């Protein structure tokens, strides 16, 4: 009892002493969602029920000269095959930010979201996807934060240049077991998915972004030299003959993406145009299994319609 009292006293003493050093802000997001399958030919099926909790702690240290963010993803899927979040995905973000006169520096595990459109931005490529079963590209667990260094330089109020360096990118997360493709007499292939938490072999991703925000228009120009988080497939180990057989392994290739976004508003309409040229390892497009290069154009128009509904 005496030992416990000593420990509690010590913790309280540390908190009291350190209280002037930082300001704390705790925030928690809790929700539950559910998916069920309705098909005319089959019975109703429970697919997913997620109890989600995202605790977050943020604050400032050393008289507001440094900020920190610490947050976690926690969920439990009680329906069907009960499923807890895997340990590597519990830590959502953990980083510090240091503001200087003309630039901000961030270090740690952080979500970075370049691009301007709300969904499916071809420029939002810094972090990999978190493809939990039936998850959408939602803001809560649509992306997995990477361990990175980010520097944002502000030459003036309207412009900024941002460099993000990710030493060991994380691949898209999608829990998948090996798949066997077997068509008797034609194909017998095992597809082996990577399960490493970090892409150590093909490390070092760089993302450079220029931002301009002004009353007339917003502009973003992006260049990235990075390891794509979505896997391609190595088919070199397949042996062809009467029967195509062997193992196909998921691999991660280096890409370059060049693109930009333009946003403006007029007459009650906000318009965003994004274009991205994604150049993969297979520029000629002749390697089976390697993702092809592509150009993506994304246009978004939003307008506010004011509808009066009265309820007395």
């Amino acid at each position, binding site marked *: 009892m005496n030992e416990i009292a000593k420990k509690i006293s010590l913790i309280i003493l540390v908190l009291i002493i350190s209280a002037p050093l930082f300001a704390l802000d705790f925030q928690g997001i809790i929700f539950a969602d559910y998916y069920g399958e309705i098909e005319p030919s089959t019975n109703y099926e429970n697919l997913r029920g997620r109890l989600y909790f995202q605790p977050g702690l943020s604050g400032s240290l050393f008289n507001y000269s440094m900020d920190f963010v610490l947050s976690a993803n926690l969920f439990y899927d009680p329906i069907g095959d009960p499923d807890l979040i895997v340990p590597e995905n519990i830590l959502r973000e953990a980083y510090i930010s240091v503001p200087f006169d003309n630039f901000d520096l961030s270090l740690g595990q952080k979500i970075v979201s370049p691009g301007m459109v709300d969904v499916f931005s071809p420029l939002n490529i810094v972090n990999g996807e978190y493809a939990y079963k039936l998850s959408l590209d939602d803001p809560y667990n649509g992306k997995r934060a990477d361990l990175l260094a980010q520097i944002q330089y502000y030459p003036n109020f309207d412009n900024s240049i941002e460099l993000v360096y990710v030493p060991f990118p994380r691949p898209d997360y999608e829990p998948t077991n090996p798949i066997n493709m077997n068509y008797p007499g034609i194909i017998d292939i095992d597809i082996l998915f990577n399960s490493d938490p970090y892409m150590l072999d093909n490390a070092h991703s760089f993302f450079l972004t220029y931002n301009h925000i002004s009353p007339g228009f917003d502009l973003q120009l992006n260049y990235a030299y990075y390891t794509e988080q979505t896997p391609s497939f190595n088919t070199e180990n397949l042996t062809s003959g009467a029967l195509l057989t062997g193992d196909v392994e998921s691999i991660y290739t280096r890409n370059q993406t060049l693109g930009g976004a333009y946003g403006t508003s007029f007459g009650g309409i906000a318009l965003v145009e994004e274009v991205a040229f994604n150049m993969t390892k297979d520029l000629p497009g002749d390697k089976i299994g390697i993702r092809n290069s592509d150009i993506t154009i994304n246009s978004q128009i*939003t307008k506010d319609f*004011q509808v009066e509904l009265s309820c007395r």
Partner: protein
Amino acid sequence: MKRLFILIFILSSLSLSAQNITLDEILDGYEVTAFIPNLTSTLTVKLISANGEVREIKAEAYQKNVNTNQVSRLFLFAYPPSVRNTGLLIHSFLNGDENVMWIYLPAVKRVKRIALATSGGGYFMGSDFSYSDFVSKARADYTQEFIGEQVLNGTPCYVVKEYGSTQKQRQDFKVSYMINYYRKDDFIMYGRDYYDLAGELVKEYRVKEAIVLGQYIYPTVVEMENIQTGHKSIIEMTDVSTDIIPDRYFTSRYLKNR
């Protein structure tokens, strides 16, 4: 008889002095007292439904006259938790240029340009105040007519009718005209009635409390009631300060990283 003559003379003199004030003097007086160069406050918006249910929104509010043509406003929301850390930056222009608004959404870590400024303004966080109520407007964009005097809630006021100079302006803001009440002793806008495009009274704005800040007068408790729906919103401003706000507050960097 002599006394009666003097009384009539005094009353007619008072009447003449009231009529002698010009529209420009009223509007100039309003601008001198109301256009505060820097203003910081903690803002609480109470949304009150027709059946008395109350919901609250809290935000830090910053306002600065950047130059003679531009007024910038920043709202950093603190409550309810669903909008916590959301930020709203508004640049409004007095030369007729379109107002520009950006919102910072912490869930997706994006600063997003939005366009609510001309589409009727949109309602500010579900309240009866529209976004257009928070943006400055050029006097030249509106036509004003001095239509007399009236006692409003026991306070003598000058009454000015104001409407968009063009049909498009009136349709954009979905208001055919407004009746403004300027308090006679200090020219603050003590009340405003909004009439919809059908000419029906739709909203009433009333100042409940105001404080004197040097040469300025600032309403600290204001109420907007939608007469047609019975919904009412009350804004209370506390911790009001006129200290100079750095220009960096009204940037996307501050919106994101404050």
